[in-house]
């Protein structure tokens, strides 16, 4: 097959190369204009004053910006909390549905719904549920005779971050679940047959076969969620706008606030590079782990 391809390309080589260029150029141009160019523009912004003079001042200011530190810390807490819960619940659901079961496809479809709606709508729904005075949660508790006066959810200084994490878990656990279920379904059957012959317990089967084989899928799913979680904006903007006080402020919100509310694009650009750097480092680390571990998982 490689030979026929070679010969065809041999004959059409030049025409093909010209065609490749023609087909690729528009897309590459658009992507360059909308992603590479803005990045360069932003680098310049972050290193200049509004009058156009060069300055490292914006980056220096970041080091003494306590609020940004808090926003970053909260972004990490949000990411870690949501990721752990989504992975655990998603894996549980995937294992649960990875068997022949009447109505399986219906269950699968229904479990996916939260992930499909705009995050803005998910946030609106949860404001309806969380509202301390008339929300569904406190309303139900009240009708059961519980005193809900201290239960403020997203409005409470101490409960707000956990409450917005819960919304993320509600909306994005389906994502983990679906990718992990697909991963489970593509695992080979032989190791399981062998384990059954050896009389392995179900925990042993999971620990020694399922988990190592599923690892690459888990890493991909974690990477994709991680990229999304570190940049979280939509839901929090609607749910709390970073409040009460500063309790749910995340990196993206803080950058948005600086650039568009305080109209300081130069400082906003500098801040945004910190987020970009963190995202890049974390994802490169995960990708390396993925590349390193995949063959090992296949060998075992």
């Amino acid at each position, binding site marked *: 097959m490689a030979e026929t391809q070679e010969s065809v390309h041999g004959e059409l080589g030049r025409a093909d190369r010209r065609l490749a260029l023609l087909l690729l150029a528009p897309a590459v141009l658009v992507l360059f204009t909308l992603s590479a160019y803005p990045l360069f523009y932003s680098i310049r912004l972050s290193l200049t004053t509004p009058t156009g003079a060069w300055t490292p001042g914006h980056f220096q200011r970041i080091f003494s910006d306590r609020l940004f530190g808090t926003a970053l810390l909260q972004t990490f807490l949000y990411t870690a909390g949501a990721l752990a819960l989504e992975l655990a619940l998603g894996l549980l659901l995937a294992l649960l549905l990875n068997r022949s079961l009447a109505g399986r496809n219906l269950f699968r479809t229904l479990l996916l719904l939260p992930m499909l709606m705009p995050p803005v*709508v998910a946030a*609106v729904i949860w404001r309806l549920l969380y509202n301390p005075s008339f929300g569904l949660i406190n309303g139900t508790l009240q009708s059961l005779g519980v005193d809900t006066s201290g239960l403020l959810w997203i409005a409470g200084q101490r409960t707000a971050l956990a409450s917005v994490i819960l919304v993320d878990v509600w909306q994005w656990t389906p994502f983990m679940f679906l990718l992990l279920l697909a991963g489970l379904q593509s695992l080979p059957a032989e190791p399981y047959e062998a384990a059954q012959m050896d009389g392995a317990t179900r925990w042993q089967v999971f620990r020694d076969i399922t988990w190592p084989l599923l690892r690459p899928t888990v890493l991909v799913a974690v990477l994709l969620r991680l990229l999304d979680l570190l940049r979280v904006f939509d839901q929090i903007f609607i749910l709390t706008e970073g409040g009460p006080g500063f309790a749910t402020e995340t990196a993206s919100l803080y950058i948005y606030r600086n650039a568009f509310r305080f109209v300081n694009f130069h400082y906003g650009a500098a801040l945004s590079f910190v987020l970009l750097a963190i995202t890049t480092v974390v994802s490169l680390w995960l990708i390396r782990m993925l590349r390193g571990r995949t063959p090992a998982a296949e060998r075992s």
Partner: protein
Amino acid sequence: MRRQAWVYLLLVAALLPTLLPIYWVVTISLKSVVDQFAVPPLWFRFAATGEHYRDIFFVRPFGRYLWNSGVVAAVATLLALVLGTAAAYALARLPMKRNWNRHLSFWILSTRMIPPIVTILPLFLLVRDVGLLNTRLALIVVYVGFTLPFVIWMMRGFFEEVPPELEEAALMDGSSRLRALRDIVLPLVAPGLAATAIFCLIIAWNEFLFALILTQTDTVMTLPVGIAGRVTQYEIKWGAMSAAGVLAMLPVFLFALAAQRYLVRGLSLGAVKG
């Protein structure tokens, strides 16, 4: 048998919190203001009313937002499909020197790793400077860039699944590359193309941050921005906002169902959310 029962029990336990919030927003959109926040909550027995739906279409400009969301998503999807399919075909089928196909593919994918808040800053200034702030055109262009990497990676995969022999036979018979692409390859990847289109529509439809920053006036605003502007206000019309929320999620549910077969592949490449 008993194990089956346990599985069903657990599944129902997972379904309840998943679906209940969705059910609740639908009921709020249909309840009169008195019933909305009754204690104890009215789960099933309430008089349904269409007043909130009438409200969002005739009192508030949500018909307009719906139209804006639809136009922006449809045009951006169409453009991204044309540009992206062409590029994907080249990457899958026309090998360039020095492994450039691979390098380009990864550069394209890497543009998606940039958090939107990083690119929106300079893009806002650029859009403002060329006088396109508060136009649907600006949003369309930005969404084309947003969905393009996704289209390219999806379609590249679909093209690679088509056996090259099929085209080569046509090429041997003297047909041109583009003709072979149109007559032989495109019909074969049509289902994949349809799924890709659906995911692009969903990405553009759900997107919020770019729309928030680039469209601030009622005439060009999209649905998520329209909703956002009204739930961060002091007094919130929950019936109307719930109706608008139902309106915003319904098309996505229908679309996603139509493309469910490809959902896993799409998600791995960033479908649904940008």
